């Protein structure tokens, strides 16, 4: 890895990303719709160019190592500590950043004065104690999604967030993914009309297991498969997509019904390998959520259905119900939106209907082909995670809190946990009043 080139890259990517957003119709206006990005303008980034966030990685498994690789390319980040109680993972992380001090007890690590920020990538049941301890130790804190294993823990984290002066982030990387930001801004501009339904799905075909060197490590390594440490497919996968659903709707569903089963991977696991959930918004719009891990044909996706068209956010493409705008005209519109004067390639002999394809996709970002199959158990490239972690490091330096990230993670995690309750109890579950927070609109 040529460090210099790569070092510049992530930083530039975040700058370029914000810059790109600026080019989108009325950049400033758009930034208002994505409040969590307002602190990351090019000007603000240049203010911190000589400073470094000293961060610790708590939990150095696959996701922790994924963040380490991104952090190594961020000029304003320095990994100073690593902590894991599973030696092989700690060693693997230490090999990536040998200068970082290693710990096996996170409480000991939190005592260190040399750490400004903590990045938590541990099993879900550890999120709440670690986030709360980290904030209490005065550390800026980043935690992977979902927020926590139980509703009470989520509420406790939210309360701590209200009272802390520290920065708190959660791993909701779609908030930092250009195709989602632009796609949702297009939806909110009315491009596909009124939202009448949302379909989300995530399909894989693998057993979701990690190899276990000896049997007593089963629950530690395969923590995703047991209720004591995991919410299963909802908290691991659906959380991202439910967040997008709420982002599109600008509100939170008031109830959920669903069914969950172990259909194929009958290997002693507890969490469902097949789930089907329906979330109901007050205005009658429903988000259906399907996930199973024994067929990958459909991959992952979020379809926002409008009365004038359909937006496939993960694919970054959209379709019109009836009339597809002429490509030359679409190019003209895109250029006007970018404030560019260019030639409109439309003239020629008559357009005749038989050359038209009714359901031809249009792309949210020109030339954008980056999509993911959703098959990776660690994280996809260019999915916003690198921008998100870079933004966290900037906040660690400036102490400036990012707006809405905690609230977004709180609501999507709550919906996952309510979905699990609906499936386990086989009934319709309403969003409980005692867990409603001011940010949420129902």
């Amino acid at each position: 890895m040529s460090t210099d080139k790569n070092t510049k890259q992530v930083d530039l990517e975040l700058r370029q990303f914000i810059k790109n957003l600026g080019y989108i119709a009325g950049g400033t206006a758009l930034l208002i719709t994505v409040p969590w990005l307002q602190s990351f303008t090019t000007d603000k980034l240049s203010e911190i160019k000589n400073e470094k966030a000293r961060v610790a990685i708590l939990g150095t498994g696959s996701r922790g190592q994924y963040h380490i690789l991104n952090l190594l390319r961020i000029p304003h980040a320095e990994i100073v500590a690593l902590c894991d109680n599973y030696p092989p993972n700690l060693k693997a992380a230490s090999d990536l950043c040998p200068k970082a001090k290693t710990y096996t007890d996170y409480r000991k690590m939190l005592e260190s004065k040399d750490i400004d920020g903590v990045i938590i990538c541990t099993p879900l049941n550890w999120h709440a104690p670690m986030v709360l301890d980290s904030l209490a130790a005065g550390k800026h804190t980043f935690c992977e999604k979902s927020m926590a294993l139980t509703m009470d823990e989520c509420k406790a984290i939210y309360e701590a967030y209200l009272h802390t002066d520290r920065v708190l982030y959660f791993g909701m990387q779609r908030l930092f993914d250009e195709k989602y930001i632009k796609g949702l801004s297009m939806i909110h501009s009315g491009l596909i009309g009124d939202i009448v339904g949302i379909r989300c799905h995530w399909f894989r075909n693998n057993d979701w297991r990690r190899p276990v060197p000896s049997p007593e490590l089963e629950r530690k390594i395969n923590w995703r498969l047991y209720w004591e440490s995991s919410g299963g497919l909802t908290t691991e996968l659906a959380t991202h997509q439910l967040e997008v659903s709420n982002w599109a709707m600008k509100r939170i569903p008031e109830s959920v019904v669903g069914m969950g089963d172990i259909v194929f991977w009958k290997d002693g696991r507890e969490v469902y390998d097949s789930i089907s959930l329906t979330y109901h918004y007050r205005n009658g719009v429903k988000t259906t959520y399907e996930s199973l891990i024994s067929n990958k044909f459909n991959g992952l996706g979020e379809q926002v259905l409008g009365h004038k068209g359909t937006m496939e956010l993960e694919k970054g493409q959209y379709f019109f119900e009836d009339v597809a705008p002429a490509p030359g005209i679409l190019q003209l519109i895109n250029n006007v939106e970018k404030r560019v004067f260019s030639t409109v390639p439309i003239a020629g002999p008559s357009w005749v209907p038989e050359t038209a394809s009714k359901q031809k996709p249009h792309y949210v970002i020109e030339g954008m082909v980056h999509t993911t199959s959703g098959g990776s158990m660690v994280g996809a490239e260019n999915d916003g995670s690198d921008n998100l972690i870079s933004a966290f490091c900037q906040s660690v330096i400036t102490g400036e809190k990012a707006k809405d990230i905690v609230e977004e993670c709180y609501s999507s995690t709550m919906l996952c946990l309510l979905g699990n309750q609906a499936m386990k109890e086989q009934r319709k579950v309403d969003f409980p009043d005692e867990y409603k927070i001011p940010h949420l609109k129902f």
Partner: protein
Amino acid sequence: MEGPCRVLRAVLYLFSMNTAYSHYYDASSLFHGSLLNIMGTRLDAVFIETDKALCELVWQRVVAELSRLDKMFNRFDIESEIYSVNLRAATESVIASDELMSVLISCKRYHNLSLGLFDVTLSDFNAVHLDVEHQTISFSAKNVSIDFGACAKGYALEKVKQLLVEAEIKDALIDFGNSSVLALGHHPFGDCWKISIENPFRPGEIVDEIELRDEALSTSGNMPTHLKHIVNPGTHQFIEDEKIVSVVTQNSFDAEVLSTALMIANPEEQGKILAHFDHVLFREYIL
């Protein structure tokens, strides 16, 4: 039989319906309207205008006007006036509406100015008799039929222009099936609208760029999929050359007529026809 007929009629109606789409881009003050299935092609309109409600109102008027003209000019529609004229004018004098009469009078004038190469009968316009006093149409030969295919879009664009001018929408681009473009004012970030002409035989290859400001551009030509659609009314031969011609004038109707006539005309005829019109930019591209 009534049941199936009614179903068939309903299905035909659905297919003939114009599907209109529109969207206003607030940040750019840009209105975009699309109309599919109109005069055998599609129309896209872009208005640069801060008054969103005005854009929507004007677009509704444009859609209504185009639908009305589509119906008037469609010789296959049994309810259209031209269908009735084509059916009856060889055996009787058919009373025509003011508008149809005036369009046909214009067509007669264009026929003369184009040395007979622009011909809405595609064979013998001299057999069409327009009685201005009684406002009737009659054909002096059998098998005469009027087809406005070569000029209806140009006429319609003039009507659209009137609607935009009345509403004081100053900057607009109307693309009527690519072959007829009307540009009012200028692009929001330029001093005109720049349009490029693509080679239909080699997609992606641009043969020319044309700047328009309060002007109309009409393009005639052949496409790989449609080689036989322009006919010389004198020789009844199809024009099958791999070429396109484009005409820029201030009037869409003129541009439409001229692009067809100049596609058919030889170089000498082209010169003579152009001498009858002022302020015409004419270009011919051999592909």
